[in-house]
């Protein structure tokens, strides 16, 4: 039989992959989201229309389906070799989350009053001075709450990579199930809860830190 300790170690192994997927998704999707955001906000329709369509497709269809398409699609349609499982999951998450982030960014940019840019201009500041010294912090303050929400969702969404057998924590727990042990699957909730608890604390700290202004 497996001891509680054995199961914990094994699940930690899986959760390491979950965490890696989470962090790498952030690393790529945070900047990519900004590019998508600028694309969708462009005054040139030839750029904004296709970007908005992509965002609609990505946000409007199930993430699980997207994972399957990225993993199996190239092989089924073009006879290409399969991507490694982890990479396929990562690519999907990056695309999916950069679309969500782009909408959060857009909200943040539009929430900074136009008067702030104008005040900076009238005071003779350059565009980059206005961006870094005036609007950036106001933008960050405004995107923190929706970002916190989105990151918590991302932690849980990583579980969907189980559909293409990425060895993350759910998969690790299910391998015990096959051996007749059901409780490790429920036990995984503790890992998610602890991690998301930490995220929640981190974000509320950041929110507090910026609460001295409106």
């Amino acid at each position: 039989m497996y001891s509680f300790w054995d199961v914990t170690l094994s699940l930690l192994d899986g959760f390491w992959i979950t965490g890696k997927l989470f962090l790498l998704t952030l690393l790529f999707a945070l900047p990519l989201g900004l590019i998508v955001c600028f694309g969708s906000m462009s005054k040139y329709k030839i750029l904004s229309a296709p970007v908005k369509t992509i965002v609609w497709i990505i946000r409007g269809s199930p993430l699980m389906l997207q994972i399957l398409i990225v993993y199996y699609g190239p092989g089924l349609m073009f006879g290409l070799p399969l991507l490694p499982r982890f990479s396929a999951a990562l690519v999907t998450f990056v695309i999916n989350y950069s679309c969500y982030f782009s909408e959060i960014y857009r909200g943040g940019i539009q929430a900074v009053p136009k008067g702030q840019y104008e005040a900076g201009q009238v005071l003779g500041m350059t565009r980059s001075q206005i961006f870094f010294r005036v609007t950036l912090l106001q933008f960050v303050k405004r995107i923190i709450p929706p970002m916190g929400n989105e990151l918590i969702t991302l932690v849980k969404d990583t579980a969907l990579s189980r559909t293409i057998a990425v060895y993350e924590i759910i998969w690790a727990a299910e391998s015990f199930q096959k051996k007749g042990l059901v409780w490790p699957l429920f036990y995984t909730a503790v890992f998610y809860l602890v991690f998301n608890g930490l995220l929640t604390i981190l974000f509320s700290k950041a929110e507090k830190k910026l609460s001295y202004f409106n």
Partner: protein
Amino acid sequence: MALLEVKDLTKSFGKTEVLKGISFSLEQGKVLSIIGSSGGGKSTLLRCLNFLEFAEKGTISVNGETVYDGEKRGETSEARMRENRLHFGLVFQQFNLFPQYDVLGNITLAPTLLKRGTAEEITARAMELIKRVGLEDKAHNYPCQLSGGQQQRAAIARALALDPEILCFDEPTSALDPELTGEVLKVIRELKELDRTMIIVTHEMNFARDVSDDIIFMANGEIEEQGPPEQVFGFPKSEILKKFLKDYS
């Protein structure tokens, strides 16, 4: 020679002509108030002077030097434009203080970025301005901790920190509760005594009559009437102005 010379300024938004050839001049140390109903082009004129909007035609000259020419707009570099706009300062209706800086920080930010002296000099000058607008005890407060009147006074100090030759006010008291307008108008009156050249767009008729050397009444994108306050308020000629003054008294 007049300090400011505006010639034939024309500006449209789409098909709507907002300024239909505005010309006027302003002497050093004088106060000009622009009155008129909403939508008459007053704010747009002020925004054109501060290069927040760009007139399609017409010129703006300060001290005989053309700082803006609508027909040569594309030829002016951004750096040059930034330099030129520093002839003017602008106080907004909505204050537009930077919320993440305290009052002192709001005032010192631009002079620091423009390298207008050492940090000590800039701070000393800012403190002087803070005293002048009566906010000595609020120097380290953030905008959200101030009343509207205090915010507007801080915004005036911020505009003064760059020492513009012409200070513009875009309805500086319109966003304020009536009991707070007095403190802001008092600051502007004091600036007049210090011989600041100012252009004030306002709906405070009594104040405009009091403080101005010259009044411009704008209607439908044109200067309908212009003259010293006694004349414009006392002996209005055009029917539109007569009606406007009646509605406002």
